[in-house]
């Protein structure tokens, strides 16, 4: 079967299953709510959704995760437009024109364009993913353990981009993750390392409790520290669907930003927050109304919203074909796939093509659902941002704990989640970035196992690391590190000026 026919057969089985459609509907609605509430990120939303999928069959669990993944990014635009506060970092550029439009009484116009642009951008990302990911995985199937060890290194080079203001602290955080991933039985000879005699640690740290702790429990503690009072929003919308004139005016920018966002998403570490600003800048540069940007220009809403939703499809390409997470959300998705007994990477295409195409179909359907749910429910979702977050904190914490416990019905995982929640909170206090730990926990075992396997297979020789593919990957890693460092230096000097 060709890729296209596989995709359509997955689509057909998905849309003819009412249970699956209901689950996508629920997860899309939940994603919009999570995204709309400032402080709740897409990563946190997906992390909280993972426990709901433990006991589900894959054909139901994966579409649910894809639903929340696609819609949470869009949800951020609601609070960006109505509150001047982006619900997720991906909606940071939407604030610039979206909020100005809302102040002019055009909130409905901005919100409806945001829905449309997000949907088209998301679909562009999915289409590129369907074409590019299988091709990339075919190449990756030829890789040996040496290449996989270097791919892990390439993935770790993402740390440079996600380290925030201090690269050194990013490396320390990654170092901690790389040490933590050594806990458990040695992958080659099964010797227990750093287990302190506890059977619970023999299989290493469970990824899901760790990530729920780092990304959700730590945020609960931040919420307890800061106590935010909810803003009352005047959410009367003058329209729910974009007028044809706006669609005509923005369509080219939406398509262009969607393509741009997808390619930015492919680059590990360059997330949707970068994509939205790049797309905004490009739209401003090429628009006939460039002088209106920042003053409530509809293109200024369409371009970043299309780009940030397209990033999802792009970020899935390295995740599915190489097993390298492009951002923290895809790192969480890797954890979710692992629970289902699947390891993202080229072997996933070879051995579980049905799963891969289920993911493609689910993302496609989730984007369509996002349009329908968001358009029909816009008046409701605009009220969601008035929910008292202080009431939500204990509920989120309980969901974290019950989610960790349900993984193995083991209280040890509950303690792991709490411990990493406190570690994550303390790390935020001393400005140590959290995401590198998660990246290291996923890529560390891949690096160690493949490096040692390579040495055993080649009589202890490191020569396989000089193969052309390894050299290209080394060069790409160096390029990514150097370009990110240059960008950081440039933004620092701009900041000083």
């Amino acid at each position, binding site marked *: 079967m060709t890729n296209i026919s596989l995709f359509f057969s997955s689509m057909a089985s998905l849309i003819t299953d009412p249970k699956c459609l209901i689950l996508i509907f629920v997860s899309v609605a939940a994603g919009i709510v999570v995204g709309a509430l400032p402080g709740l990120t897409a990563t946190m939303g997906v992390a909280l959704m993972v*426990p*709901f999928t*433990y*006991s*589900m069959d894959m054909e139901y669990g994966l579409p649910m995760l894809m639903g929340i993944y696609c819609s949470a990014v869009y949800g951020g635009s609601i609070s960006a437009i109505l509150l001047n506060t982006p619900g997720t970092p991906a909606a940071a550029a939407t604030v610039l024109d979206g909020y100005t439009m809302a102040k002019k009484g055009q909130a409905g116009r901005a919100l409806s364009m945001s829905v449309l642009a997000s949907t088209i951008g998301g679909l562009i990302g999915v289409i590129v993913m369907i074409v590019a990911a299988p091709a990339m995985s075919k190449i990756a199937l030829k890789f040996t353990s040496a290449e996989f060890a270097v791919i892990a290194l390439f993935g770790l080079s993402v740390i440079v981009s996600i380290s925030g203001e*201090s690269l*050194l*602290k990013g*490396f*320390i955080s990654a*170092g*901690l993750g*790389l*040490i933590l991933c*050594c806990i458990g039985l*040695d992958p*080659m*000879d099964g010797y227990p*390392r*750093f287990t302190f005699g506890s059977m619970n640690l023999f299989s290493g740290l469970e990824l899901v409790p760790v990530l729920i702790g780092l990304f959700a429990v730590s945020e*609960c*503690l*931040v*919420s*307890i*520290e*800061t*106590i935010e009072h909810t803003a009352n929003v005047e959410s009367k919308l003058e329209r729910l669907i974009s007028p044809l004139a706006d669609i005509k005016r923005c369509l080219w920018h939406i398509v262009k930003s969607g393509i741009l966002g997808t390619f930015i998403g492919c680059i590990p570490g360059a997330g949707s927050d970068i994509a939205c600003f790049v797309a905004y800048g490009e739209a401003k540069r090429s628009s006939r109304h460039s002088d209106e940007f920042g003053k409530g220009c509809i293109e200024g809403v369409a371009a970043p919203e299309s780009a940030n939703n397209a990033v999802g499809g792009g970020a899935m390409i390295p995740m599915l074909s190489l097993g390298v997470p492009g951002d923290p959300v895809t790192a969480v998705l890797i954890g979710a796939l692992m629970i289902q007994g699947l390891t993202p990477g080229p072997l996933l295409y070879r051995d579980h093509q049905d799963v891969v195409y289920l993911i493609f179909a689910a993302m496609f359907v989730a984007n369509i659902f996002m349009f329908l749910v968001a358009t029909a429910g816009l008046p409701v979702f605009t009220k969601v941002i008035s929910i*008292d977050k*202080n*009431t939500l*904190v*204990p*509920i989120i*914490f*309980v*969901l974290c*704990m*019950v989610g960790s*416990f*349900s993984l193995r*019905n083991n*209280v040890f995982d*509950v303690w792991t989640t*709490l411990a990493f929640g*406190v570690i994550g*909170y303390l790390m935020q*206090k*001393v*400005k*140590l970035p959290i995401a590198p730990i998660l990246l290291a926990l996923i890529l*560390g075992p891949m690096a*160690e196992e493949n*490096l*040692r396997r390579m*040495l*055993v297979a*080649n*009589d*202890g020789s490191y020569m396989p690391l000089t193969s052309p593919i390894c050299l290209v990957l080394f060069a790409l890693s160096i390029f990514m590190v150097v370009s990110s460092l240059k960008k950081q230096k440039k933004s620092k000097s701009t900041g000083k000026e």
Partner: protein
Amino acid sequence: MKKANLAVGVIGILLSAYVIITAAGFPENRSAVDPGAAYFPTLMAAFMGAMCILLIVLTLTGKAAGLQEVLTITPGIKRAAVGVLIFVAYCFLFKPLGFVLDTIWFSFTCMLLLQNRKYAKMAIVSLLTGIVIYMIFANLLGAKLPAGLLRGLL
């Protein structure tokens, strides 16, 4: 941030030293070409140790990023510390008290800590949180949540 950086550096060095010393006690590799169980942890600990030393040096010489920021113990941080204690109590009582009862007292106390004062609403939300989440996970998703004191009732 100077003290925080130094604390991160020292803790990191201590952790690295612990890992390197412990890994030195791992058995020799069986295969002559496999670097063994100690190889990766030692390498990673050395890397982290080096980064921590660099952080301390840059902090002491005033070249580390973000040194101008001051980390003070605010009332908010104290509240978060109380939050951690409540979280710990919740985890301790998870099995003996059972999920539902544990969640009810926890949610109420947590909302109190978050300066909610609408007691009736807090009580209803706490009750619903415990019961609804239990029903979803235990009845719909098949999780074996501890019943604790309500064993026989749930």
